């Protein structure tokens, strides 16, 4: 779905890091030859200033146990211009149109949405 240059850059950055489920880093693009059946692609949607900086959507690999907090950290490291937004409590995460906490662990069918601070009126 996502084949822009930024997608490849994300892959590169994640692959460069020493990620493993053992130390809790389980949202990654690293090739996991030990558990190929357990990895899946998680689709992430962005809005507002996050969509402007990252694009409207992105896919990354995830392993069981990947949390919203880890997605925030990974994306913040890759997109420092919106790291403050991603780490802000006011930027909410949704799965299936329901707000989820940072310790929410992703399931294989989940689509995660990151909503920067909202404002009407």
């Amino acid at each position, binding site marked *: 779905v996502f084949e822009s240059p930024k997608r490849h850059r994300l892959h590169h950055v994640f692959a460069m890091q020493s990620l493993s489920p053992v130390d809790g880093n389980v949202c990654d693009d690293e090739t996991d030859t030990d558990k190929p059946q357990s990895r899946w692609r998680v689709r992430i949607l962005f809005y*507002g*200033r996050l969509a*402007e900086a990252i694009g409207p959507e992105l896919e990354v690999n995830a392993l069981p146990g990947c949390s919203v907090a880890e997605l925030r950290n990974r994306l913040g490291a890759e997109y420092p211009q919106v790291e403050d937004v991603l780490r802000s409590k006011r930027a909410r995460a949704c799965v299936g149109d329901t707000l989820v906490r940072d310790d929410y662990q992703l399931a294989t069918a989940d689509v995660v949405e990151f*909503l*920067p*601070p*909202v*404002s*009407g*009126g």
Partner: protein
Amino acid sequence: MTIVARLEEVELRPEQELAALLKQALGDGAIVSFVGVARPDSRSGQAIDRLVVEPHPSLTQRSLDEIAVAASDRFDVSHVRIVHRCGEIGAGEPIVFAGAASPHRRAAFEAADYLMDRLKSEAVFWKREVGGAGSNWIEPTEADYADRDRWG
């Protein structure tokens, strides 16, 4: 009791919304309405041509519904009406209409105040102002969050 919470993509006509509220509120003693207008300048004084207001495909309507219903539950009002624009809104054009009708004025004033305080920091929109100096995202201020928090 009627509750209207509508997203308008093209045009908001406050006079039509007020007329509709007046028509619904026969028998009530008070109608309070608020119209929010896109400002021609930014907080820093830069000239603004337009606002771009982006909605979420499902959460925006849900947020408008939830805020309108909450106002009707909380105050002694007969009718609540929210109409909110999305898309491109030129400076000087209305962006939101919030109105309430009630038997007596106090509840209508409070309901309209409540609607706007919640809309400012909880309605699911992302706004940016566009002008000669470029594009700038607008987010609630701490005062906006404090205004919302005073309702508990």
